[in-house]
């Protein structure tokens, strides 16, 4: 594709963690709270563990098949047709992930920042900026993530520190109050929050230092998990489980609750919006890139650039299709199931390759 277009392991960590965290963090606490209340952090930690295992499986497969990416070794392991099916699911997952991210970006910006600007304009502006970035390949995307990552970390830190006077950490107790059953029931939803990590299978062969793919993948999972757990616990400590479930965007509400003496910083939520624009820009670019990359594989194209422009109307309509917030949330259900399918396929591929490997040895 782009022979020289490679990224470093550090860039991969920043790109992955920003994108995966950035897609969900504004509303994640509400969804988790509605399932398991005070035990959300346990659920998130378990899903992080699952994500770490999936990442490890992908990298192991990637090494076993001599640096082939996830789409290439899928065809080898599963055969042509099932390989095709897998790539199809993969494309669908990341296509939906981009439309979902775009739409939630537009919804939040319209709700809190640009009340009179049409949603179409907000989404198109984002879409064209992203397409422009991706038109220059993967490396500019990685560098954009590298630039934004520290700023995002700083802003989130400011917001989280600002609410500390209101936080009551005993809200986390009692541990396991919801019982194990509800944790298991909620696991698919929560695992879906991490599904972006399956993209590590695409990036691993494109690293400058392919040997560091595993540590980079695990570091990114760790960072995201840390971000999720900290945001969840802080939201819980400030709002309690019931109110976290009542608020549509609990993390935005955190920023809006900060009360700095003197009217100077009364608008700390504008900081939150800046943050949201940055993370979403990276997150949309990321899933958009993966979607067009996999689509190129599926169609046998050598270049992703034409695909990026071809995909714009599809992404636009995909993002505009849900008629309201409820419908946009239905989209996330489709995402959960697709994530399950993709994770299932990855585990299956690992098992098959394990058997095949034994066969060769014997």
């Amino acid at each position: 594709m782009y022979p020289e277009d490679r990224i470093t392991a550090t860039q991969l960590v920043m790109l992955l963690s920003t994108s995966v965290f950035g897609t969900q963090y504004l509303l994640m606490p509400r969804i988790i709270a509605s399932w398991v209340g005070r035990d959300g952090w346990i659920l998130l930690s378990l899903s992080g563990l699952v994500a770490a295992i999936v990442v490890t499986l992908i990298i192991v497969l990637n090494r076993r098949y001599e640096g082939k990416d996830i789409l290439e070794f899928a065809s080898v392991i599963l055969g042509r047709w099932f390989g095709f099916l897998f790539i199809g699911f993969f494309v669908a997952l990341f296509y939906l992930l981009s439309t979902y991210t775009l739409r939630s970006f537009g919804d939040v910006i319209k709700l809190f920042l640009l009340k009179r600007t049409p949603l179409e304009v907000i989404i198109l502006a984002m879409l064209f900026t992203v397409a422009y970035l991706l038109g220059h390949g993967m490396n500019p995307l990685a560098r954009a993530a590298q630039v934004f990552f520290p700023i995002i970390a700083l802003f989130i830190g400011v917001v989280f520190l600002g609410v500390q006077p209101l936080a009551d950490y005993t809200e986390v107790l009692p541990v396991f109050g919801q019982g194990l059953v509800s944790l298991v029931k909620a696991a698919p939803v929560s695992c879906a929050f991490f599904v972006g990590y399956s993209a590590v299978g695409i990036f691993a062969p494109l690293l400058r230092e392919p040997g560091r793919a595993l540590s980079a993948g695990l570091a990114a999972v760790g960072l995201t998990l840390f971000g999720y757990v900290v945001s969840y616990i802080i939201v819980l400590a400030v709002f309690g489980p019931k109110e976290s479930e009542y608020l549509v965007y609990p993390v935005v509400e955190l920023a809006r609750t900060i009360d700095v003496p003197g009217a100077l910083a009364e608008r700390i939520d504008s900081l939150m919006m800046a943050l949201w624009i940055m993370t979403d820009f990276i997150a949309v670019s990321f899933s958009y890139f993966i979607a067009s990359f996999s689509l190129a594989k599926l169609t046998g194209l050598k270049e992703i650039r034409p695909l990026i422009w071809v995909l714009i109307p599809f992404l636009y309509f995909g993002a505009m299709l849900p008629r309201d917030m409820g419908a946009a949330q239905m989209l996330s259900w489709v995402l959960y199931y697709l994530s399950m399918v993709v994770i299932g396929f990855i585990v299956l591929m690992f098992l098959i390759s394990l058997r095949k490997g034994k066969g060769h040895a014997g």
Partner: protein
Amino acid sequence: MPAKVVGLALLLAILAAGCWDVRDIEDYGFILGMGIDASPEARQELRFTFEVVMPAQAATGGGQSGAAAGQQLSPFWNMVVKEKTMGKALDVAASRMYQRPSLEHLRVVVLGEDVGRRGLSDVLDFLLRCGEVRRRVAVYVVSGEAEKALSVKPRVDPVNAVYLANLQNNDRESSSIPQRMDLGQVSRSIHEDRPFIVPRLVPGKEDVIISGGAVFKKARLVGWVTPVEVEGIRWITGRIPGGRVAGEVGGKSITYHIMQSKSSIKPRVQDGRLSLQVEIESEGMLAEKESQASALSPTFVDQCEQAIARQIEGSAAGAIKKLKHYGADVFGFGRAVERNYPNYWIEISPRWEEYFRAVDVNVHATVHIRRIGVVR
């Protein structure tokens, strides 16, 4: 090339024109305070008081010092609108002023007693939903009409709503005014179905007094607590960063200045019977004494500590008695049981009110007078 130039020109034409949402600050009429009263005539209707503030007039200091401005315009204007819903009331407000009524800078919501008794869960939805209003907006209840409190022309600030909103911040300086209550906490307490206390305002001529609080249960006002009871509640919930307690040693008054306090609520279940142990610990200084005894004498300080500790236990016991009467657990006793005995809590939580009314609460206070001031 020309295509690029034209494209750039078009792009500039769009972008340089500014933000789609551009609105000048002069176009806004900021509502800083809001009063909600039940309407005496129609049960369906509510009476909203919107305290609109004109920044220019607020800056000149209003009537008293604004003589130079030539006009005697008040820095705030209370617009009373009767409507069924708050959203519709804002609509009506827009027909009475040429600015856009905006809640972005809302600082205080004052509830009338009647509307409190009818229940808050439906009334506040607009404020929580609209996204303009912050969750830190101060909330009060007036025994009587909310409009009265908003009509006070305070001496310390030209704008009534600013005065009211900032008044709550003195919960750090006085132990007998209820803890700061804001819209977010009201909403949370309602959703958690937890009773709560809202500071009660008594409007005067040039000021208001925070005097005790209103007890809300299931989002309805069920009764009042006195300042002494408020103090008891705050000792138990353990959030008193300042304030003073008066006591008596040998027939002479003393005053204790609270520097810090903490409390712990320990539930115990023995043979299926629940009891609660509340430990209160406070550190502070001797603020004043009438007696001639030396404050350097350890025995005298001991006596003072004992006297203040008994005082604290007394006000705590009084508060518990009153709130048991209302069946409103504002102390977080239920939450303490849930934390320590989650399974037992699941069993009793549907009937928690009964349990709360009957539960034995043992309060023990320890006071440390660490400083005596600069004289003996």
